[in-house]
């Protein structure tokens, strides 16, 4: 095996093999786990950097597969496939993952189970890296499931909280619903290509259009679950019960981006039909999450809804169907989002650390003065999230909005409105946190966090600011055929200013409504009460899934089945037993012990059998 291949394997293999040791050394001294875990991911990052600049930028495609299940004629390949797309993802995941784990060193330093926490974080990051570098759909699925498993364990990390245990369960089951579509998709790919399409390189061996549509839609079903798109987004707000760094990792680097990556990876099999499904799911998700984000008060849940929305932009960008350009737009948004979302979550984590984990933004306020570095970074994050000109989010998101204009004006309008909503909820959150007077005792006594938590925040803030300059290079690196012209350089049309104007309007409106003491929110809520309730109740989707499907539907069916099991099936078996027992009791009465009765019975039997013989044989 070539050195390059070994190195590529090590990117995810090293932390994957190392995670048991991370937990293991924790039994010696808990802090060792933190150091080992952080360094493992850092080494991963260094290796990705090396592989990227030694091979990938020179246009060398690293590819290696071995047969996982010998004696199956169609081999089930496992291995690595490192092209520009996977390497740029790997670089981002290992880098952002490293920063988040570094932050956790400060954030989790008092938790008694931190060795387990760091072990799981390392496994989480390495699974995501494995998913990205996988050479076949099956291997991608294996790591896909491991990512899901880690999110389950980490969301439920504070297992003694009933909410956390229940959120972990919800995340597992909801993403599992998506996963089974993925399984069906792989099954379909095997059937339609005689196994050829199992490997990433062989996806082209599905030829017929309808077959491609089926496979791609099934795979997209998996992506919906993992990437928290409508209607399977319900797990992600609840998942906020885990430690904040976990949320940062889930939202920025791992897990939710997996679905987007899957679509980008298998983009060749997406047909116009499936792409339009992808597009509209993305658009619906953006609008939905933008509206819900406006009425939620939990700081982490606001960020969760913003993730759902931003992933929606990535999905919509892929759904635009512009070929390589779509992938460029989407992955660029993915990476920009990774930086500013990690930033926002870590800043939120820093704030929560300071205000004793009270997550209600109504109980914060005036924190800008108390935690200047954290809150200023959060301001940068909020600007980047809403797409303020010059920051990462502007280049990534507004490019998508601009590109959509050529596809459909309707989609363009919805995406622009989505951007407006994003600005509104981002700055609603920010103003409520940063301005005004502290509205609780905890906020009163907040103070700046330690340097180990601030360093990652500042680095991420810097990236959120400067990432925009890489846009052109990013597109051409990802695919030389990409035709996107970055904003700011292209000749601008009037249309392109509308998102920016909307964004500035949103900022101003947010300040006007939530930046000062005002009764406007209450007035609006009372004025449009029906709509407000609809949004406040998250369009009743949670209620529908939890109360109707799970509790009424499944549990009801389950109760019925249990009754059927005990009464009908169990009853029938016992009944048949009783029949034999009772017939035995009745027949026993023939056994009188009187010889003359026995002779009579013998005679009757003899006559009957002779008659029978005569009838049957004609003797």
């Amino acid at each position, binding site marked *: 095996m070539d050195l390059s291949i070994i190195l590529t394997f090590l990117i995810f293999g090293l932390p994957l093999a190392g995670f048991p040791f991370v937990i293991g050394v924790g039994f010696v001294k808990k802090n060792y786990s933190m150091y080992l875990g952080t360094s493992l991911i850092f080494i991963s990052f260094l290796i990705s950097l090396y592989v990227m600049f030694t091979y990938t930028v020179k246009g060398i495609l690293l590819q290696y597969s071995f047969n*996982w*299940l*010998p*004696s*199956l*004629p*169609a081999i089930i390949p496992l291995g690595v496939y490192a092209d520009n797309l996977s390497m740029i993802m790997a670089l981002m995941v290992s880098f952002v993952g490293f920063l988040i784990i570094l932050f956790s060193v400060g954030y989790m330093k008092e938790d008694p189970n931190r060795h387990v926490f760091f072990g799981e974080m390392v496994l989480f990051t390495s699974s995501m890296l494995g998913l990205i570098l996988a050479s076949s759909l*099956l291997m991608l*699925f*294996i*790591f896909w*499931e*491991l990512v899901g*498993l880690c999110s*389950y364990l980490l969301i*439920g990390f504070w*297992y*003694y*909280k*009933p909410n*956390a*245990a*229940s959120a*972990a*369960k919800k995340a*597992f*089951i909801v993403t*599992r*619903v998506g996963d*089974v*579509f993925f*399984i*069906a998709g*792989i*099954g*379909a790919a*095997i*059937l339609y290509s*005689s*196994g050829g399409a199992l490997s990433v390189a062989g996806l082209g061996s599905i030829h017929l259009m309808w077959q491609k549509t089926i496979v791609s839609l099934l795979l997209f079903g998996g992506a919906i679950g993992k990437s928290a798109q409508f209607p399977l987004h319900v797990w992600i707000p609840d998942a906020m019960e885990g430690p904040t760094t976990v949320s940062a990792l889930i939202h920025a680097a791992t897990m939710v981006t997996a679905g987007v990556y899957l679509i980008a990876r298998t983009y060749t099999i997406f047909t116009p039909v499936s792409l339009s499904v992808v597009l509209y799911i993305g658009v619906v998700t953006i609008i939905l999450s933008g509206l819900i984000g406006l009425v939620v008060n939990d700081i982490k849940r606001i960020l969760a809804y913003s993730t759902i929305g931003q992933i929606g932009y990535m999905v919509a960008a892929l759904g635009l169907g512009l070929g390589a350009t779509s992938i460029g737009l989407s992955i660029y948004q993915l990476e920009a989002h990774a930086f500013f979302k990690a930033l926002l979550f870590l800043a939120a984590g820093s704030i929560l650390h300071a205000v004793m984990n009270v997550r209600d933004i109504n109980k914060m306020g005036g924190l800008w003065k108390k935690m200047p570095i954290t809150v200023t970074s959060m301001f940068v994050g909020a600007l980047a999230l809403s797409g303020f000109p010059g920051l990462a989010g502007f280049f990534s998101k507004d490019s998508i909005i601009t590109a959509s204009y050529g596809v459909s004006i309707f989609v363009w309008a919805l995406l622009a409105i989505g951007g407006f909503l994003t600005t509104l909820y981002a700055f609603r959150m920010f103003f409520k946190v940063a301005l005004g007077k502290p509205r609780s005792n905890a906020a009163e006594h907040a103070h700046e966090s330690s340097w180990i938590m601030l360093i990652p925040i500042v680095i991420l803030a810097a990236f959120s600011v400067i990432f925009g300059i890489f846009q052109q290079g990013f597109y051409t690196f990802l695919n030389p055929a990409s035709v996107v012209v970055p904003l700011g350089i292209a000749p601008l049309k009037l249309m392109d200013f509308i998102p920016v104007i909307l964004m500035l309007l949103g900022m101003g409106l947010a300040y006007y409504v939530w930046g000062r003491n005002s009764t406007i929110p209450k007035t609006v809520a009372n004025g449009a009460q029906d709509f407000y309730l609809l949004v406040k109740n998250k369009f009743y989707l949670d209620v529908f899934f939890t109360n109707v499907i799970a509790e009424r539907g*499944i*549990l009801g*069916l*389950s*109760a019925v*089945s*249990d009754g059927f*099991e005990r009464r009908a*099936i*169990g009853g029938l*078996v016992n009944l048949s*037993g009783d029949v034999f027992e009772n017939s035995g009791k009745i027949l026993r009465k023939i056994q009188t012990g009187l010889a003359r009765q026995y002779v009579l019975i013998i005679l009757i039997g003899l006559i009957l059998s002779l008659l029978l013989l005569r009838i049957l044989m004609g003797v």
Partner: protein
Amino acid sequence: MMFQLSYLLLALVLIMVASMVAREKTARYLTVLFAALVFVFVISNDMTMTTFAYGTLSILTLTFQLNFVSSVLLLLISFVGVFVPLRYASSPGFFVLLQFLLFSLVGLFTTRDFIVFYIFWEMVLIPSFFVIGIWGGPSKNYAAMKFFIYTHIGSVFMLLAIFTMYFTEGASSFAMSTLTAGMNVVPVSYQAFIIFGFLFAFLIKLPSAPLHSWLPDAYVEAPSEGTVFISSLLSKMGAFGLLVIFSPIFMASSFAGNSAVPIALMALGIFSLIYSALVALYQKDLKRMMSYTSIGHMSFITIAVGGFLYLNGTNPLDSQLLYYGAVFQLISHGIIISMIFALVDTLEKTAGTRSIPSLGGLARQLPALSFLIIAAFLASVAIPGFSGFVGEILILLGSFAVLKYYLIFVLIGVVLTASYHIFALQKTVFGPYNEFLGNIKAKREELLVEILPLALIFLLGIYPALIFHTFNIHVIQFLGGIH
């Protein structure tokens, strides 16, 4: 030099005799030796297809065969033979019965004669019956009787089917190869009866809903050591029957291309999967809930066999995915379910209850036990990295070729299965600790033994090639038996 099966069987009988006359704990350690011998036998025959012919005895043909399915099952036997004595310090009588059962299973999985097969099939019932009846829970007599009579009804139909084959073909022996190959001369109505007879026996033993009602009672009432071997080995009899006895008979019959029976099998498998998951979701007793897991896992075998017979060799790739998946599922399920029931036993002894509502938050008080329970449950949910994944994913992938959109029902079953496992974890291991349980501690040695199945589950999950390299590529020819 080949390790002859006759030597093995002789050695096993000697060990059994020694266990019977020996005192106290000797039987327990002899069981390990017993299992080790079986293991050495399989390994030394390189786990490839080997036939042992020892002539005939009156009308019985003493031909035995170690093929890839029986190799895998013999490995499972040796696992159970090591795991149970290490984990449980039961009375010597129990271990003699266990050895007797393992001996019968070695014979059952290797013989190539129908009557010998039937004899071993019935011999297995005896130790199971006594283990439930002697060491069982409160309603052990009811459970033992139900178990015995229920499965015996199945065997009767199998015996009738065997005789039907023998007499309608006018055969001179009960050798499986000749009787199976002669299926095409049997009148069609008799063929239907033969297929029904075998299917009925195997589906009861598997078990597949709605023929499963002996199982929850038997599993729950049996002592934990009994539950371990019954759940991991007895269900494999039905699966072995379907894969190695029933499939060739069906493929040699004139129903071969007919899709009615395969569709019925798949429908039954899907029903069994969903039904068992739904019932399990409602159970409050952890042991009872896990008995339904067994039904759910075994229904994948039914689906795989149905799909495999439906394809009838037209799609070699998917046929092999299904068949290999099913065989892998056998060993994987055997190990996982042993581990689960042993853990439930430890939990019951430690916490004093196995009722889900009275547990909760065990992760705080019993971290090691909780870790093991989580690992075993995740293996049972078929998370990658655990052996359960390999078998299940292969069957799911392969069955797309047959079921197409109907695969959605299997997938619903998969989600439901995951749901009740996760639900049970949430209520027992996670959540706030139930302070009424007090300050409890699990026995260290009991937990240490669990490392054996856990290591095997990991090993097979990460490196399934250990088992897979033994698989014979020509499944279809192997089954047809006519090549």
